[in-house]
């Protein structure tokens, strides 16, 4: 399955995922304490240089991951220009960009399996509430297995629709799509029962 982790190993890939995540938490908390624009510019520049030091591909991917922020950047820019408070706007934008970029950097340099291991450690205390970790691991595997299956089912439903209609299915597609998920769930429950899972 496609992940956001960079397939090319960088030095950061070797760091323990727990350390990276703890560092990210501290970084983000500190970031929200900073109010001086110059400091924030420094942080942003450092982050950008850090990305570039890891490689052009990491920097480009990191930049791409910031793209969904543009509507907020636009709103904040216009808002603060109207209020004649450009430095206030700059603080918000730099903070937002740095927080997201740092988080994405951890994602890009941590393998899915390592992240999953951290997740398992985080949810381990839940086993006392009757939610054992292996159940969660199984659920995660099932989701990864069934995303392509459901995707194919929905593509089939679409083509069945277009075979007999000129208009796109629109929201109506969601009824058979949800029914497909419900059907698959029954099959999975049966297969789990046949093979001793989740008993």
């Amino acid at each position, binding site marked *: 399955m496609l992940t956001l982790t960079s397939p090319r190993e960088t030095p950061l890939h070797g760091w323990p995922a727990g350390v990276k995540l703890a560092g990210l938490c501290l970084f983000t908390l500190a970031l929200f304490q900073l109010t001086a624009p110059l400091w924030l510019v420094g942080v942003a520049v450092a982050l950008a240089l850090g990305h570039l030091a890891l490689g052009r591909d990491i920097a480009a991917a990191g930049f791409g991951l910031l793209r969904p922020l543009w509507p*907020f950047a636009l709103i904040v820019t216009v808002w603060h220009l109207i209020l004649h408070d450009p430095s206030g706007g700059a603080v918000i934008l730099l903070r937002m960009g740095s927080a997201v970029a740092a988080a994405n950097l951890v*994602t890009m340099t941590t393998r899915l399996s390592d*992240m999953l291991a951290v997740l398992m450690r985080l949810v381990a205390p839940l086993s006392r509430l009757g939610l054992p970790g292996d159940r969660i691991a199984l659920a995660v595997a099932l*989701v990864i297995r069934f*995303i392509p299956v459901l995707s194919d089912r929905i593509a089939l439903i679409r083509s069945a629709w277009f075979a007999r209609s000129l208009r796109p299915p629109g*929201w109506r597609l969601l009824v058979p799509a*949800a029914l497909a*998920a419900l059907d698959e*769930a029954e099959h999975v*429950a049966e297969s789990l029962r046949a093979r001793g899972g989740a008993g």
Partner: protein
Amino acid sequence: MERSLSHIALFAALIAVLGFVPQIMLPFGVPITAQSLGIMLCGTVLGAKRGALAVLLFLALVAIGLPLLSGGRGGLGVFASPTVGFLIGFPVAAFVAGLIVERSRASIGLAAGIGALVGGVIMLYAFGIPGLALMLDKTLPEAALMITAFLPGDLIKVVLAALITQGIARMRPDALLSRA
């Protein structure tokens, strides 16, 4: 037990897949993403507990680095972005929508509509707006103003969630765990 687990996993997968399907065009040219409808359906179809767990499972997969949010977004960055409040609100939205469908005696369509409105809009905004205010350093009314543009689309989703849940109930009455 197996059925709970499999329904939770399959609906988490459904939310993900609904992030890839092309945006749904409403008659007057307003595009809506099917993914947030999926969140509402988790509640109205699976019920409060399973619905919320399906959404949590989905978010866990996003957090560990799978680009499953609509538009191919994912990873830890989305939890540091201004919309984080909405992500936190997702499981709550599904829970509340499910609770309303479970408890209500109204017809399934009406109950799902009310559930989607209270859970998928009111509760979701109750988390999303403060998140936005915090991340963008705005007051609550200012943050609310920023997202008013989404309100009409979200209200349409409420109607669609009601229609879809009703459609499922009609085609497969015993599949609705929220009313089982």
